[in-house]
C-alpha cells in the first residue's frame, strides 16, 4: 500500500474560490474538484482532447504583469494582483491550470456561449427522446435543461442522415442523433486499437461511419455506447428493453480474467438488464470488454441448478449437506478449489480442506491476453487463493495429479467448489470411481456424475472480494437475489464445516472477514466494509517469485510467462 509522491500543486481561482489542484489538471477537472460543473460533450478524461463541442467555454483571466519589469500589476481597488480577462471565451478542456489562473463559469458571456452551443446542437437533432434509449442518461437532455434557452427558433428543414445503422454485431447507430463529438472514433483508435470509425462528408452533413465492408466488432465496441454522450450509439442488446431510470445499480467485478475490471450491474425487480464499466483509474479506466457485459446471461440460463440433489434425486439443503458430510468424513478426500471463488469462499474452503486433511487442487485457466482488459489468466481470483493460503503455488496446467490419485485409489471422494471436473481433465471413468460432492451454479458433466449436488450463487447474487493481477483486492456486491433452491457458497461451506466437525469461521461475509483478519497476515488490517470502492493494493512481495501467466495489459506490466513467450 504505497502512496504515490504528492504532485506539485497549483492554486487557481474559479468563480471566486481559490483551489489547489495538481499541475497538469485542466480547467474542467479543477472545477469539478470545487464541485463547480462545467458542461462538456467531446471531452473525456481518458481520451485525447480535441475541443470540438465548445460546450465548456469559460472566461479566463491571468494575473497582470508589467511587460517590461515582469513585476505584478496590483489593482488598487482590491489590493490584489490585477487580472487581465481575455475578451474571448476559452475551452476548459484544453486549458491547463497555471498559477493564479482565474476562471468564470457563471458570467453572462459563458451563459450565452452555452445557450448558443445547446441551440446549435439541437437544431438538427431529431428530438425523439420519448423512444430514445439514452433518455435519462443523455447529456443533451441534461444540459438542455441546465444550460439551454428552452425554446427553438429553428423553422428550417432538419438534415436527413442514416437511421438504425448496424455498425457491428452489438452496436446500433442513429446518425441523426450524433453530435459529432468524435469520442467513439478516438476510443477505437486510441484504446481499442481498431481504427474502423470515421467521419464522412463535411460540415453539418458530416456523418459517423464504419468503413464500408468493415464492422465495429472488436471486443470493446460497447464502450463507444457508454461514452456516446447522446443516443447515437446504442447497445443492440439493451435497445428498447428498459428505461434506465427504473434500474438499480450494484458494484461488481468482471470475472473474465485476473484484470478485474470494475463494473456496474443494472437490474430491476431481480432481473439484470446490462453491465457497464465503473471507472477505476488504476485498473480499467472507464472501459470493459463486450464479452464481460454478457456474463449476466448465465444468471437465467436454462441449465441453472435450482435444487439440491442426492444421487440425482431432489432433496432439501440440510439432507444434501448431511449426505455430503458423510461422504467426506470417510477420508481419502481431495478438494478442488477455484480461482473463480471469492476470497471469503477460498478462505472457508481452505479451512474445510484442512479439517478434512484433504489436498487442495486449483483449476488453471489460461489463454492469450488481449493486451487491454483481458489477461492471460482467465480466473479472476488466483491471487486470492494464494493470499488466503488455499494454495501455495500456481495451479498446474490440468488436474492430472488428481486423476492419478483417483486412479490409484488414494482419492475416493472429491469436493468440487464450483469447478467442472470433466472440463478440467478428469475422465468419465475417473469420475465414476469417486464420490463427488459438487457445489455449483450450472448443470454440467460433473453435476451429472456427482453423488451430492448443492446449487450455489453466481457472482451477481452474492457479496465478496477478488484479488486481481495487481494484487488489488476489490469488492463486488449482489445485484439480484439467487434462485430459490440455491444457497450462498459461504453458507454451504460453513454448513459442511459444521457437519464434518471443523471449527466455525463464519457463514456470511462480515463474520468470515473477522476470521480472515485474525488468520490471514496479508489481510490483517482489513474488513469487508473498509475496502474502498476502487480496491486496495496488497503487498505482492511474498509471491514475487511465482511465474504468473499475465503479460501486459492496460494498467499492469506483466513479466509473466505470456510476455516471455512473446
Amino acid at each position, binding site marked *: 500500500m504505497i502512496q504515490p509522491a504528492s504532485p506539485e500543486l497549483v492554486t487557481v481561482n474559479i468563480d471566486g474560490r481559490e483551489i489547489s489542484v495538481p499541475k497538469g489538471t485542466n480547467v474542467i477537472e479543477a472545477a469539478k474538484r470545487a464541485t463547480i460543473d462545467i458542461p462538456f460533450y467531446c471531452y473525456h478524461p481518458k481520451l485525447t482532447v480535441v475541443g470540438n463541442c465548445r460546450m465548456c467555454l469559460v472566461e479566463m483571466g491571468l494575473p497582470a504583469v508589467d511587460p517590461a519589469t515582469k513585476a505584478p500589476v496590483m489593482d488598487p481597488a482590491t489590493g490584489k494582483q490585477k487580472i487581465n480577462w481575455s475578451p474571448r471565451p476559452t475551452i476548459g478542456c484544453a486549458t491547463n491550470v497555471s498559477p493564479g489562473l482565474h476562471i468564470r463559469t457563471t458570467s453572462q458571456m459563458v451563459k450565452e456561449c452555452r445557450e448558443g452551443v445547446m441551440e446549435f446542437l439541437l437544431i438538427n437533432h431529431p428530438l425523439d427522446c420519448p423512444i430514445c434509449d439514452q433518455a435519462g442518461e443523455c447529456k443533451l437532455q441534461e444540459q438542455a435543461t441546465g444550460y439551454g434557452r428552452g425554446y427553438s427558433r429553428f423553422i428550417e428543414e432538419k438534415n436527413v442522415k442514416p437511421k438504425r445503422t448496424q455498425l457491428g454485431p452489438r452496436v446500433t447507430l442513429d446518425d441523426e442523433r450524433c453530435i459529432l463529438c468524435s469520442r467513439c472514433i478516438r476510443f477505437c483508435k486510441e484504446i481499442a486499437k481498431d*481504427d474502423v470509425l*470515421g467521419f*464522412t*462528408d*463535411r460540415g453539418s452533413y458530416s456523418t459517423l*461511419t*464504419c*468503413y*464500408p*465492408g468493415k464492422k465495429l466488432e472488436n471486443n470493446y465496441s460497447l464502450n463507444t455506447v457508454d461514452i456516446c454522450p447522446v443516443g447515437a450509439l446504442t447497445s443492440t442488446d439493451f435497445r428498447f428493453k428498459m428505461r434506465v431510470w427504473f434500474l438499480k445499480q450494484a458494484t461488481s467485478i468482471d470475472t473474465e480474467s485476473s484484470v478485474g475490471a470494475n463494473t456496474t450491474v443494472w437490474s430491476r425487480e431481480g432481473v439484470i438488464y446490462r453491465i457497464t464499466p465503473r471507472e477505476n483509474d488504476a485498473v480499467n479506466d472507464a472501459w470493459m470488454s463486450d464479452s464481460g457485459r454478457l456474463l449476466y446471461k448465465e444468471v437465467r440460463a436454462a441449465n441453472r441448478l435450482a435444487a439440491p440433489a442426492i444421487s440425482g434425486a431432489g432433496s432439501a439443503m440440510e439432507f444434501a449437506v448431511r449426505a455430503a458430510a458423510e461422504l467426506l468424513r470417510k477420508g481419502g478426500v481431495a478438494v478442488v478449489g477455484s480461482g473463480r471463488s471469492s476470497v471469503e469462499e477460498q478462505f472457508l474452503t481452505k479451512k474445510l480442506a484442512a479439517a478434512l486433511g484433504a489436498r487442495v487442487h486449483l483449476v488453471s485457466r489460461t489463454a492469450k491476453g488481449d493486451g487491454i482488459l483481458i489477461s492471460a489468466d482467465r480466473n479472476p481470483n488466483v491471487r486470492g487463493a494464494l493470499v488466503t493460503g488455499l494454495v501455495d503455488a500456481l495451479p498446474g496446467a490440468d488436474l492430472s495429479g488428481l486423476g492419478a490419485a483417483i486412479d490409484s485409489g488414494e482419492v475416493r471422494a472429491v469436493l468440487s467448489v464450483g469447478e467442472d471436473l470433466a472440463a478440467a481433465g478428469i475422465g468419465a471413468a475417473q469420475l465414476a470411481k469417486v464420490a463427488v460432492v459438487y457445489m455449483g451454479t450450472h448443470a454440467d458433466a460433473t453435476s451429472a456424475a456427482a453423488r451430492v449436488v448443492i446449487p450455489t450463487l453466481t457472482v451477481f447474487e452474492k457479496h465478496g472480494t477478488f484479488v486481481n493481477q495487481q494484487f488489488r483486492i476489490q469488492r463486488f456486491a449482489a445485484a439480484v437475489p439467487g434462485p430459490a433452491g440455491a444457497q450462498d457458497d459461504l453458507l454451504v461451506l460453513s454448513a459442511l464445516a459444521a457437519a464434518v466437525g471443523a471449527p466455525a469461521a463464519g457463514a456470511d461475509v462480515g463474520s468470515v472477514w473477522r476470521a480472515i483478519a485474525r488468520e490471514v497476515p496479508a489481510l490483517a488490517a482489513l474488513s469487508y466494509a473498509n475496502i474502498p470502492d476502487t480496491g486496495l493494493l496488497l503487498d505482492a512481495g511474498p509471491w514475487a517469485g511465482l511465474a504468473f501467466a499475465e503479460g501486459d495489459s492496460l494498467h499492469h506490466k506483466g513479466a509473466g510467462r505470456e510476455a516471455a513467450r512473446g
Partner: protein
Amino acid sequence: MTLSEDTLRRIDEVITHYPVKRSAALPLLHLVQEEKGFIAPEAVAWIAQKLGLEPINIHELVTFYPMFRQKPIGRRHIKVCRTLSCAIMGGYRTCAEFQRQFGTELGAVSPDGEVTVEFVECLASCGTAPVVMIDDELHEKVGPEKARELSERIKAEAKR
C-alpha cells in the same frame, strides 16, 4: 486494382517526398483518380495498404475533399464557379446554359455521356468572372454566349 507502370512509378516517387508516409494520401488519390477517373472502394483499400493505414483513413478524405469522386463522370468535366464574384457577373446563367446545352442535371453525367456539369466554389480567378474550368483548363469571362461556343467545341470533339 491495376495501375499503369507510370502511375506506380510516380506513386513510389511521391511517397519519398514525405518523412511520414501518410502525407502521401492526397497525392496518391490524385494520381489514382487521374488514371481511373474516380476513386473506387478498391482504390481506397489499395491506397490505405500502400501507406500502412486503415481504409477508413482514406475514405474520410475521399468524402471530405470535393475534388475526389466516388463515381465516374462524363468525358469532360465542366466546373462553373458559383461564388460571389462570378455569381454577380452571371455565373448562374453560365451554368444553366451548359446544362441546357447538354440537357443535364447538376452533378450528373449528361445523357450522351459527354459531360458532367457542376457548380464549384471559388476558382480564384474572380477578376475574369464568370470563370469555368473544363477538366484542367480555365476559361475566363464565360457568359452564356461563350458557354455555347465551348459546348459546341466539346460536342464537335465527340463526333470525331
